[in-house]
């Protein structure tokens, strides 16, 4: 079975600070990691491969340094990695990104399953997975926490707000994966050493042959007019006294606010 996992390199949000004057993220010097939800997608792919054999290919679209995220994925057990990168792809929004990634996946043969993380922790849009599925014209399910292979279909356990649903979905399919699905295995030493030296092909404009109007900043319908931190207005109140009195007071106040 051939599985593609799309991973995004994101700043380690635990280590990001906010510039108090501009309200922008201080990205300089912040270490990059694989988007945490993409780790769950990768582990889901690796588990399917452990069970059914096949190949796991990781794809990342981003600047040249996104290669590091791909090497990390290789050290965890992915078989192949492809970097999608070109200056002309720069500034892409989720629509243009989905289009570009779909071109890369079309170049691969016999793909059975394409996995994404639930969303990326930097943009939080959750749009690229469904977007790619759209451009490839294949069925897609979001929020998968489990998957089984059943003949020509996948049986997918999808998390919902009040439980889960079981779906059958035709091959080839795309899924976005939630955190509850699993925990990414540790890297192996041999794979880690091999990943350092692995040749990672870079597919750019010439390799993917895109329609010019669909890529990069100019191909992106989304326009960001302003970035700002929403003003936070909190009415803080600190209770004091005996714990039992404070709890009674707290419950009363929460009821007043209709929280309870």
């Amino acid at each position, binding site marked *: 079975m051939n599985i593609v996992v799309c991973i995004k390199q994101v700043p380690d949000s635990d280590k990001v600070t906010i510039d108090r004057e501009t309200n922008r993220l201080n990205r300089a010097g912040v270490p990059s990691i694989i988007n945490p939800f993409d780790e769950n997608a990768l582990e889901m792919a690796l588990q399917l491969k452990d069970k059914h054999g096949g190949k796991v290919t990781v794809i990342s679209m981003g600047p040249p340094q996104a290669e590091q995220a791909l090497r990390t994925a290789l050290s965890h057990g992915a078989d192949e990695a492809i970097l999608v990168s070109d200056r002309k792809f720069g500034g892409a929004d989720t629509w243009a990104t989905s289009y570009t990634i779909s071109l890369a996946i079309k170049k691969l043969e016999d793909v059975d399953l394409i996995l994404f993380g639930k969303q990326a922790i930097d943009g939080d849009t959750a749009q690229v997975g469904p977007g790619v599925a759209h451009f490839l014209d294949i069925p897609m399910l979001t929020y998968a926490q489990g998957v089984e292979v059943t003949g020509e279909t996948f049986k997918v356990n999808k998390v919902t707000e009040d439980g889960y649903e079981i779906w059958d979905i035709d091959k080839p399919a795309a899924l976005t994966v939630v955190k509850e699905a699993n925990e990414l*295995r*540790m*890297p*192996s*030493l041999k794979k880690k*050493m091999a990943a350092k030296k692995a040749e990672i092909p870079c597919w750019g404009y010439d390799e993917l042959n895109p329609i010019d109007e669909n890529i990069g900043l100019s191909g992106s319908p989304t326009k960001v007019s302003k970035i700002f931190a929403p003003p936070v207005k909190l009415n803080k109140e600190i209770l004091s006294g005996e714990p039992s009195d404070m709890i009674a007071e707290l419950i009363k106040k929460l009821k007043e606010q209709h929280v309870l």
Partner: protein
Amino acid sequence: MGNINWGITEEQQEIVDLIDDFGKERIVPVRAELDEKGIFPADILKELAQMDLMGLYIPEEYGGFGADHMGFTLAIETMSKYCIGVSVSFAANALGADPILIGGSDEQKKKFLSPLASGEKWAAFGLTEANAGSDAGGIQTTAVKKGDKYVLNGTKQWITNGGEADIYTVFAVTNKAKGSRGVSCFIVEKDTPGFSFGKKEDKLGIRASCTRELVFEDCEVPAENMIGREGMGFLLAMKTFDVSRPGIAAQGVGLAQGALDEAVKYAKVRKQFGKPIIANQGLLWMLAEMSTKVETARAITYAACRSLDAGVKNISKVSAMCKYYAGDVAMSVTTDAVQVFGGYGFMKEYPVEKMMRDAKILQIYEGTNQIQRDIVGNSLVKEYASV
């Protein structure tokens, strides 16, 4: 650590980084429970196998990673920062395998080292008996030749990984008249008839590790499982210790480093008399001493590993030196770490009391620290014989 250049290679650094991440993610969250309940870290060893780390010390031709002594020692040191109950369960595999690596035939190596390298099987080393601890030459377990087999009778005591391991290197007397030159070493597999496991110990420290009796009752072992020739066992045990003691030293270095890390972090945030306790010279100097001890223990340990890797012939002295020095350092640094934590250090909610309990074993197993001083002293007598 710190600003010292230890000349670690890129590959060795990869090993360190990998195990450091593993320690933080997989060992720290469970170590208190493993310790309290005395749970053997089987899941951790299985994951280490997936990570290619169980075969770190085994040559590539037998399916291992083929790290040098320095690389393997760094692995033990790094894991020991987080829990030496776990790191000894890991390292005792190498101790059990060392007699095969040192004296085994190519066939024995192929047969027994390959499953150890993959982590599919685990190993243990069986020398000590109730009446033969420091005086290992005085073991009483016997092996009597019968056709193409040896029949083993006797009981080994306090064997790390006992019951959990699949492959045991066991020392037994084949010729009583010859004393320690009448000892031979056998590879015994877990399911051999006549081989069973006795008492499992309840211990002060390294409680995650399993320490158990091996019982041999007319246990027939194929003669081809003897390592080397009859009578070579004791020498093989001593050669094994030459190689394994720097690993025990590395446990001491890692454990002491772990305790120092905790102590410094705590001393910076704990406030008394209106300032962090680290602002008191009395405490700061204590931390300085702890740090200096850790680095000197590290230096002698690495020196021993580098000598091993360079193929230096007579390694017993420096091996014994680093074993006892780093073990003593671990005991003193962990005790001081508890002191830095004050009353909190005495409590199980904080990690340092466990570290102090764990440290004690480093002065006892693989030859007590008195015996190590004996080895160093006897080497001196030899070295200065002609003076």
